[in-house]
């Protein structure tokens, strides 16, 4: 099999009358990072949610490792164990400690041994500098720390593909940096990621490919150099060049 992890072919998604995705096609190879950019409501989040089967598509096809996700034999839970997703609002489990949050998936979905899972979780938490907060409850952490824990919670499942849905949009500007730094590290280590983001500088630095979505249509995709330098379409230019201004506040970390 080739290196293609994810293949989207003319994906259509409707919410009632409202067509949110109008034939989006996109491909993602192993170790590749693709950033989705576009205004709010352009369909970036919906696209990610379709890959994770949190939404069912109404047309076209999505293939994961060459297998169509529209196949009735597909078990969504098995798909989700391979495709991690991190949300804008972190959505950590407030009644569990940080460690238990990270360990829940491997223990309950993979049914792995508790001690082994905890050991691994602590290693992951150490990597993001939050090992000493392992026994704290999430609401005691800052937004940036919570979001990094949420990312690690997904990583603990050892996903083949990580989806990130505007993970810095809910954060205080001073906390954005620490989360983007973690994502940059992951990209350098070869994590395959599909990232919906408003952080244009981040997209330019990290993405192998940038795709611009507008009202459910994938207008243009290409290398960051092209997309932020001289895109083919006027609409892309208006969007990417307008917003790709220097980051107002560098991350404090």
């Amino acid at each position, binding site marked *: 099999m080739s290196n293609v992890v994810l293949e989207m072919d003319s994906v259509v998604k409707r919410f009632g009358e409202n067509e949110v995705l109008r034939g989006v096609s996109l491909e993602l190879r192993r170790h590749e990072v693709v950033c989705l950019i576009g205004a709010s409501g352009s369909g970036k989040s919906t696209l990610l949610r379709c890959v994770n089967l949190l939404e069912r598509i109404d047309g076209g096809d999505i293939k994961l490792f060459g297998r169509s996700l529209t196949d009735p034999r597909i078990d969504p*839970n098995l*798909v*989700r164990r391979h495709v991690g997703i991190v949300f804008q609002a972190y959505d950590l*489990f407030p009644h569990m400690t940080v460690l238990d949050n990270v360990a829940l998936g491997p223990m309950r979905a993979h049914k792995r041994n508790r001690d082994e899972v905890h050991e691994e979780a602590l290693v992951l938490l150490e990597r993001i500098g939050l090992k000493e907060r392992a026994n704290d*409850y999430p*609401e*005691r952490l800052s937004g940036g720390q919570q979001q990094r824990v949420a990312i690690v919670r*997904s990583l603990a*499942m050892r996903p083949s593909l990580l989806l990130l849905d505007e993970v810095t949009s809910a954060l205080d500007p001073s906390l954005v940096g620490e989360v983007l730094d973690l994502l940059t590290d992951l990209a350098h280590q070869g994590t395959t990621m599909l990232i919906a983001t408003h952080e244009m500088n981040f997209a330019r630095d990290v993405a192998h490919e940038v795709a611009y979505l507008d009202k459910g249509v994938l207008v243009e995709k290409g290398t960051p150099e092209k997309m932020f330098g001289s895109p083919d379409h006027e609409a892309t230019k208006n969007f990417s060049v307008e917003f790709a201004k220097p980051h107002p506040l560098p991350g404090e970390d």
Partner: protein
Amino acid sequence: MPIDPGVDIPSFDPSDGVPNLFASRRSRLLVGRRGVLVSTLSTIVILGLIVALLFVPSGGAVFRYTFFNLHDLWVAWVGDPHLGIDAVRDGLVTNIWMFLVSEALVLILGVLVAWCRISQSPVLFPFRMLVTVYSDVARGTPVLLVILIVGYGLPQLGFGFISDQSPAVYGVFTLVFCYTAYVSEVIRAGIFSIPNGQHQAARSLGLSHASMMRHVILPQAVRNVIPPLLNDFISLQKDTALVSAIGVVEVTRAAQIFSSTEFNESGLTLAALFFLVLTIPMTRLTDRLIARDRARRLTIVT
């Protein structure tokens, strides 16, 4: 919409002098150490008035004799076999085991019923219908009536095991039947109170529906509804008194026997005290558990 520049927006005019930012004299009196002193004084005065009401008026002695007769309180407590008076302290054990067993069963069944009602599984469809009807019936019929129907009705059927139980067991059965409906509604509300993000986060880890409910949704749902849940449990504890209607000699029944034999109501007072002693510490304990859970999870901002 931009504000019409012609509209005058009211604001404090600094030329009027410094605005008053001080609290009134009266509210200043009620904060800090002075506040403690004031509250202590007012408590002493009010309690003193209540005690005085018991002792000073002309009816005070009769009142004390009727409801707080120390000798009769004692006799009601220990019972008197010669006069055929059952001891309230023996009845107490009956009430306690009845509500402990009932509460455990109600909690388990309540979760199951709530789960069934919100589940979307097609297999459970007939159960969902039955459970909805059950919940309407159980909440719509008086507990006392159900106790009578079950306690007198089932033994008449002559159905072996079902008809051979003791009245106390019928009582527990009825309490579980009636209260499961209330508790399941409370738990259902608790489940609905959990934000959708929690469901999504759990599902996107690849957890099964059952795992998600057990590890993510229910623990949070139950925490959110502890106060109303406790309400139902207190209500259930008190309703163990209704089981006396089918001849179970529990606290209320024993007290009633005493009162009708001795023509003194101190036995009933004793029974009332028993229920108070039981429920008040439970509410305090739950308040503390909730406070501790909050403190552990949140950085409290005042």
